[in-house]
C-alpha cells in the first residue's frame, strides 16, 4: 500500500462513478473559503474531524453531471506536526477519500505559498494550482508566466479571482479531466523538488530503503519519499508509526546518523537546511516566472497601510482597540436587546392565549409550554439574539484582518496570565456572552492553549451575570461591593489561568502569527460564516436546552426539587449561610444565570416581601459571588464540550464549583466572624 499509494489510487479511479472528492488546501487567508463558498453555496456542513476537535468544512455541488464533495482544509503553512490542523490535513489528503487537491495560492505572496505547494507535492496526490488574486497582482504591474509555471510544476495551473468567481468553475472542469478522464501523469518529483546533492542522496537512500522493506504494510499511507523527508526532519508521528514495524531493522539509527552527518556538514539544524533549500528552489522559480512590467512603478501609499500603521501604533492602537470593543458591544446589545424585547412581548401574548384556551393548570401545558417553550424562548432572547450579531461583527473584524492587530497590542499583558495575545479575542467576547466566546477559542493553535483560554473565558462575567450582580448587590448595597465582586472574579480568572498553566503538560507557546494586509470584508463570506455558526448553535445547543427545560419543569411539578434543597442544605445553609430555597435557584441558574435573581424576586413577591427581607447583606454578596463563579451556564458547557470534550467540560465545572464554594464559604465565615468580633 505504502509504496504504490498513488498508483493504486489512480487505478481505482478508472471505474470512478460520478463522484469526485476534492480537498481545498492552502495557507491561511489566501481566499480558500471564498472559493469554497463560490463553489458550494449553501450546501455546506460544519462538523468535527472524527475523533479530533478540528473543524471540518464540507460542501457539495453538481456540475457537468458529476457530483463533487469538497472539503475545505484548515489554512496551514506546512505539513509538519506543529498543530493538530497540520496532522489532520496530511492524514486526510493521503486517505482514499481524496481524488484531487486544489492548492489555492495567493498571487501576491507566492514565496510562502509555494513552500506549502512543495510540501503538498510530496504527498503525490493529483493536484491543481489555483493562483488567486491575479487582479491585485496585475494592478501592481506584475505578470506571471503561466506557461513557465506549468512547465516547472508539470501540473495544471489556473488563474482565479475568487471574490468575483472568475475562473472558479474552470477548476472543476480541470478536475473532471484529471480524475475521470485520467488526463494526468503524476510528475517525477525529483525533477521538480530536488534538494541539494547531499540532502537528496540521503533522501533517496531512505526512500529506497523504505520501498524495499515496506511493501504490503497497510498501516502507512504516506508515499515513501514524503516519509523519508519527514523522518530526516525527525517527525515524531511518522517515527512512531515506523517503530512498530519489524521490517525496518535499525532504521532509527540510520536516520539519526544521516541527520547527524547533514547537520555536521551544513552547521545547521536539519529543518533549517531543508527549509532553506526549498526556499532557494522557490527563489529560482520566481526568477523565471515573475515578470515585472514596469520596474519603476512604486506601490502607492494606500489606505490599507495607513490603517495598519494606526491600528498597531503604540498610542493610537490602544485608543482604536477600545473604540472597536465599545462598538462591538453597542452593536450587539442594541440589536439583541431590541429584538429580545419584541420576542418577549410576543411570547407573553402567546402564553396568555394558550392559558386561555387550555387553562393554566393543564399539566401538559405546564410541561411543554412553561418548560420546553419557555426554555426555547429564553435561549432565543437571552442567548441567540446576542450570538448572531456577535458572530457577525467578529466575522467582519476577522475577515478584514483587525483581530491579529489586537492580539499584537495585548500580547504582553496576556503573558502575565500565562497565555499569549490571541486569547484576548475570545475573552473580550466573553463579557457579552460566554457561548460565542468559548466557540471563538477555536482560533488558538494548540490544544493546550485552547483548553486554557476556554477555561478562563467561561468565568468572564457575561451580560446575564452582570444583571444579577447589578440587580442585587448594586441595587441594595451600592457600587463599591459590585467592584469588590468584579475584583474577586478577575482574580479567579487569573488564578485559573495560572493553575492550568502549571497543571497542563507543555509550556506556554509564544506568539508566531502572520499579520495580513487589511482588505474589504467579503459580504458573502461574512453572511455565510455567521449563518454557519448560528446554525451550529441552533441545531446542537437549542434542543438540549429545551429538553433540560422540560425536565426541570417536570421536577418542579412533581415537587422533586424540595428534596434537592434538603440535599443541598449542608452546602447552601451551613457552608454558605444562605436560605435553603436558594439551592434550587442555583440549579436553575445553570440554565440561565439571570434566573437566580428572577426566581428570588418571584419568591419574595409571592410571600409579600422584598429581597431585603429574604437575604441579609452578607447573604446577598455570597449569593452573587457563587452565581458569578460556580459553573458556566448550560449553553456554555455544551459549547465547551463540543470544542474540547465532555470530560474537560466536566473538569471545568468541578474546578469552578470548587473555587466558588471555597471563596463563598471563606467570605461567609470571615464576615460572620468580623461582625461577631465587632
Amino acid at each position: 500500500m505504502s509504496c504504490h499509494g498513488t498508483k493504486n489510487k489512480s487505478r481505482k479511479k478508472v471505474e470512478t462513478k460520478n463522484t469526485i472528492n476534492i480537498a481545498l488546501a492552502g495557507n491561511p487567508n489566501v481566499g480558500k473559503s471564498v472559493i469554497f463558498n463560490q463553489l458550494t453555496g449553501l450546501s455546506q456542513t460544519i462538523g468535527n474531524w472524527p475523533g479530533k476537535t478540528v473543524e471540518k468544512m464540507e460542501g457539495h455541488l453538481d456540475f457537468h453531471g458529476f457530483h463533487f464533495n469538497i472539503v475545505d482544509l484548515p489554512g496551514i503553512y506546512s505539513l509538519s506536526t506543529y498543530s493538530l490542523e497540520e496532522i489532520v490535513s496530511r492524514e486526510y489528503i493521503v486517505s482514499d477519500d481524496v481524488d484531487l487537491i486544489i492548492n489555492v495560492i495567493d498571487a501576491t505572496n507566492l514565496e510562502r505559498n509555494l513552500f506549502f505547494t512543495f510540501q503538498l507535492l510530496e504527498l503525490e496526490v493529483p493536484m491543481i494550482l489555483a493562483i488567486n488574486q491575479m487582479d491585485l497582482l496585475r494592478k501592481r504591474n506584475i505578470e506571471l508566466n503561466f506557461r513557465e509555471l506549468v512547465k516547472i510544476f508539470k501540473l495544471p495551473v489556473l488563474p482565479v479571482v475568487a471574490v468575483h468567481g472568475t475562473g472558479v468553475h474552470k477548476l472543476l472542469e480541470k478536475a473532471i479531466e484529471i480524475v475521470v478522464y485520467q488526463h494526468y501523469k503524476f510528475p517525477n518529483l525529483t525533477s521538480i523538488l530536488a534538494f541539494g546533492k547531499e540532502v537528496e542522496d540521503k533522501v533517496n537512500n531512505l526512500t529506497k530503503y523504505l520501498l524495499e522493506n515496506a511493501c504490503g504494510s497497510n498501516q502507512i499511507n504516506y508515499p515513501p519519499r514524503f516519509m523519508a523527508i519527514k523522518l530526516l526532519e525527525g517527525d515524531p508521528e511518522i517515527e512512531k508509526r515506523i517503530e512498530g514495524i519489524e521490517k525496518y531493522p535499525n532504521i532509527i539509527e540510520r536516520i539519526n546518523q544521516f541527520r547527524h552527518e547533514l547537520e555536521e556538514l551544513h552547521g545547521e539544524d536539519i529543518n533549517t537546511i531543508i527549509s532553506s533549500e526549498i526556499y532557494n528552489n522557490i527563489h529560482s522559480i520566481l526568477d523565471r516566472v515573475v515578470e515585472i512590467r514596469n520596474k519603476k512603478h512604486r506601490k502607492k501609499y494606500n489606505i490599507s497601510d495607513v490603517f495598519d500603521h494606526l491600528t498597531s501604533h503604540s498610542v493610537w492602537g490602544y485608543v482604536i482597540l477600545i473604540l472597536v470593543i465599545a462598538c462591538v458591544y453597542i452593536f450587539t446589545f442594541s440589536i439583541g436587546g431590541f429584538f429580545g424585547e419584541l420576542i418577549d412581548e410576543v411570547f407573553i401574548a402567546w402564553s396568555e392565549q394558550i392559558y386561555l384556551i387550555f387553562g393554566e393548570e393543564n399539566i401538559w401545558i405546564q410541561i411543554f409550554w412553561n418548560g420546553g417553550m419557555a426554555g426555547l424562548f429564553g435561549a432565543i432572547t437571552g442567548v441567540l439574539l446576542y450570538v448572531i450579531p456577535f458572530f457577525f461583527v467578529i466575522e467582519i473584524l476577522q475577515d478584514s484582518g483587525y483581530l491579529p492587530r489586537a492580539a499584537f497590542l495585548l500580547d504582553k499583558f496576556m503573558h502575565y496570565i500565562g497565555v499569549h495575545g490571541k486569547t484576548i479575542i475570545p475573552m473580550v467576547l466573553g463579557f457579552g456572552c460566554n457561548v460565542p466566546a468559548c466557540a471563538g477559542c477555536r482560533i488558538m493553535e494548540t490544544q493546550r492553549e485552547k483548553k486554557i483560554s476556554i477555561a478562563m473565558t467561561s468565568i468572564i462575567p457575561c451580560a446575564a451575570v452582570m444583571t444579577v450582580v447589578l440587580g442585587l448587590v448594586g441595587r441594595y448595597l451600592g457600587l463599591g461591593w459590585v467592584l469588590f465582586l468584579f475584583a474577586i472574579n478577575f482574580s479567579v480568572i487569573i488564578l485559573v489561568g495560572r493553575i492550568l498553566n502549571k497543571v497542563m503538560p507543555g509550556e506556554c507557546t509564544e506568539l508566531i502569527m502572520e499579520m495580513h494586509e487589511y482588505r474589504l470584508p467579503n459580504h458573502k463570506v461574512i453572511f455565510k460564516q455567521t449563518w454557519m455558526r448560528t446554525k451550529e448553535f441552533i441545531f446542537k445547543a437549542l434542543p438540549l436546552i429545551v429538553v433540560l427545560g422540560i425536565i426541570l419543569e417536570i421536577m418542579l411539578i412533581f415537587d422533586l426539587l424540595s428534596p434537592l434543597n434538603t440535599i443541598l442544605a449542608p452546602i447552601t445553609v451551613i457552608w454558605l449561610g444562605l436560605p435553603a430555597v436558594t439551592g434550587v435557584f442555583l440549579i436553575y441558574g445553570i440554565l440561565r444565570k439571570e434566573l437566580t435573581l428572577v426566581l428570588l424576586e418571584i419568591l419574595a413577591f409571592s410571600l409579600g416581601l422584598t429581597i431585603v427581607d429574604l437575604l441579609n447583606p452578607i447573604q446577598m454578596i455570597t449569593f452573587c459571588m457563587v452565581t458569578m463563579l460556580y459553573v458556566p451556564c448550560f449553553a456554555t458547557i455544551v459549547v465547551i464540550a463540543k470544542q474540547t470534550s465532555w470530560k474537560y467540560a466536566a473538569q471545568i465545572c468541578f474546578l469552578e464549583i470548587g473555587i466558588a464554594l471555597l471563596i463563598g464559604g471563606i467570605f461567609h465565615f470571615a464576615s460572620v466572624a468580623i461582625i461577631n468580633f465587632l
Partner: protein
Amino acid sequence: MNTNHFIHKDHSQTAVIKRLTECKSGEEITVVSVNIGHKQKRRLANLGIVPGVKVKKKNCAPFRGPQQILVRGTCLVLGRGIASRIFVKCANECPPY
C-alpha cells in the same frame, strides 16, 4: 516581490551581531542564527526565517511587547521571547547565503 538582491559592499568589515529585539524599527537586517527549541525552530524555518534571509523590522508593541517583521513578502508577529533569540546583523554587511 522577489527581493533576493543582496548588496555586498565590504566583507572584511566585521558585522555587529545583535538580537532582533535590539534593532530599531525600520532597520533592514539579515538573520544569522535562530537559537530556540526544536519545535519552534522548525516552525520559523517553515515560515522562511532561516539564516541568511533578509528581514525588515517594522514595529514593536509597547511595554516590551512582540515584534513585527517583514519577511519573504509578508508581515509576521513574533513574541518577545522568540524575537530575542533570533540573532541578526545589518543587511548591508552580509554576504549572500
